């Protein structure tokens, strides 16, 4: 059956089963809990969080929120880079996941922005002053403004233009959303000239987006890596480490999302097959190995040749308070790499195993983000302060879980409005 002759309901659009309703209701309820928690923080201030000043106040001003800013922005990396690489290198096996990858990028960037806002006591003042006074040369500006404005905007443009053909095809079938599809298609008629033009535009966009996203993720790493007075952060490996871990966690997310799409939309199974998961698994495995190597080098350098505070921080990570996070992350990442190696050696890749790899690398990424942000603030002072403590409160946890649910909810609702698998994809299995 050709794609054009299919009903839009065959690709999940407009089809709301009991499972979809239940998932939407649960996710919406969690989002409401997160919103209630945020309203509490907005009214009472950050005293309701576990965040405190470092030094004399004995706490950490950055905690769960900033850890998840780094995590969300990391997840966004793989989405748009996969879309760009598929376009540049013609990786046909990954074509069916390009739209969900682009969507994941947009959603996770927005969640990253919300996490920054959650971390600010006065969000509106923060936004205004940033655009009024910030230095474009500063990594902070690069992280928030360039990532959110440049990178997010570029991803939205890419997403919009890439979806025009499917919007045109969807507009050919009668539905309540026909006007919306016509608006998205914006006069597109799928002519040879339009297709050629779109090829040129997406090639140029892909070429422009790749350096932009490497810069954006490196700047995020430099926010930490340039802090000369903060043991644990000051490292030349921060920027490349951020880029690599971003790739690992994002690829893992795409594998999980692709499996969910297969589960929710059985018709998508013929498109998103083992070859797609095999490539996702290989990329995840290789980047996971690179990140394990970075971690080893970082620990060896800081632990062997670092000054006293640096060595103390390494001790805390390996054997002290933060050891469960450190070793939990390392074990999860090593397991994911091992799963990939085992499948590669057998020459047989399984969708379940790649999804397990995706979940494991994301556990590792969250653990790693937590130990990047907090230990250097609680235990990394070069001044003679007592060690600090940071324990997130239920408000912070509820806001972060609420944000994650919001992301899942947006993706779920979008999948009911628009094909998450491009209509012109070739079957991969």
């Amino acid at each position, binding site marked *: 059956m050709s794609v054009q002759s299919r009903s839009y309901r065959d690709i999940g659009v407009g089809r709301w089963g009991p499972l979809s309703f239940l998932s939407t209701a649960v996710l919406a309820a969690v989002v409401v809990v997160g919103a209630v928690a945020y309203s509490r923080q907005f009214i009472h201030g950050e005293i309701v969080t576990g965040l405190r000043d470092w030094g004399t106040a004995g706490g950490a001003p950055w905690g769960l929120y900033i850890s998840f800013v780094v995590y969300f922005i990391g997840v966004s990396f793989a989405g748009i880079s996969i879309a760009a690489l598929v376009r540049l290198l013609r990786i046909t096996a990954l074509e069916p996941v390009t739209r969900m990858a682009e969507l994941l990028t947009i959603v996770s960037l927005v969640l990253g922005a919300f996490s920054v806002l959650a971390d600010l006591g006065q969000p509106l003042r923060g936004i205004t002053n*940033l*655009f*009024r*006074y*910030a*230095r*474009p*040369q500063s990594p902070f*500006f690069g992280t928030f*403004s*360039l990532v959110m*404005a*440049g990178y997010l*905007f*570029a991803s939205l*443009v*890419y997403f*919009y*233009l890439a979806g*025009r053909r499917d919007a045109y095809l969807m507009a050919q079938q009668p539905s309540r959303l026909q006007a919306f599809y016509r608006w998205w298609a*914006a*006069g597109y*008629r*799928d*002519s040879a*000239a*339009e297709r050629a*033009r*779109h090829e040129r*535009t997406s090639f*140029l*966009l892909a070429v*422009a987006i790749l350096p932009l996203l490497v810069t954006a993720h490196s700047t995020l790493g430099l926010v930490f890596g340039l802090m000369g007075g903060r043991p644990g952060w000051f490292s030349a490996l921060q920027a490349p480490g951020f880029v690599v871990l971003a790739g690992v966690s994002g690829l893992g997310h795409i594998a999980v999302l692709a499996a969910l799409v297969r589960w929710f939309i059985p018709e998508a199974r013929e498109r998103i097959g083992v070859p797609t998961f095999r490539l996702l698994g290989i990329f995840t495995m290789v980047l996971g190995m690179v990140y394990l190597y970075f971690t080893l080098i970082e620990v060896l350098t800081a632990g062997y040749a670092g000054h006293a505070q640096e060595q103390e921080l390494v001790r805390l990570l390996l054997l002290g308070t933060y050891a469960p996070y450190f070793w939990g992350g390392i074990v999860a990442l090593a397991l994911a790499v091992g799963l990939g190696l085992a499948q590669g050696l057998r020459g047989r890749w399984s969708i379940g195993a790649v999804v397990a790899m995706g979940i494991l690398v994301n556990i590792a990424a969250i653990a790693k983000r937590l130990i990047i942000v907090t230990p250097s603030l609680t235990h990394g002072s070069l001044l003679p302060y007592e060690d600090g403590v940071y324990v997130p409160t239920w408000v912070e946890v509820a806001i972060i879980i609420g944000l994650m649910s919001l992301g899942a909810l947006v993706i779920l609702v979008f999948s009911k409005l628009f094909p998450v698998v491009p209509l012109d994809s070739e079957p991969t299995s």
Partner: protein
Amino acid sequence: MSTRAIVAGCLALAGFTLGMVAYFVLAAPWGFPPDSVAHSNPRVPFAPAIFVLGVMMVFIAAIVYELWPGNGDRR
């Protein structure tokens, strides 16, 4: 060269120029000591917003290029 390519190219160039001007001329100047007031306040208020606008204009050029009306778009 088609009109659409010229318009989109000009928009991209204008966006790039705006970004560069905001970065190097309108924002806080480079210099030492970097934490002094002279080197920390932007020379023009909202220079960072102008820089972001420039970046956005470069990408809007892609939309203009694809959506600009022209001949030969019929199937």
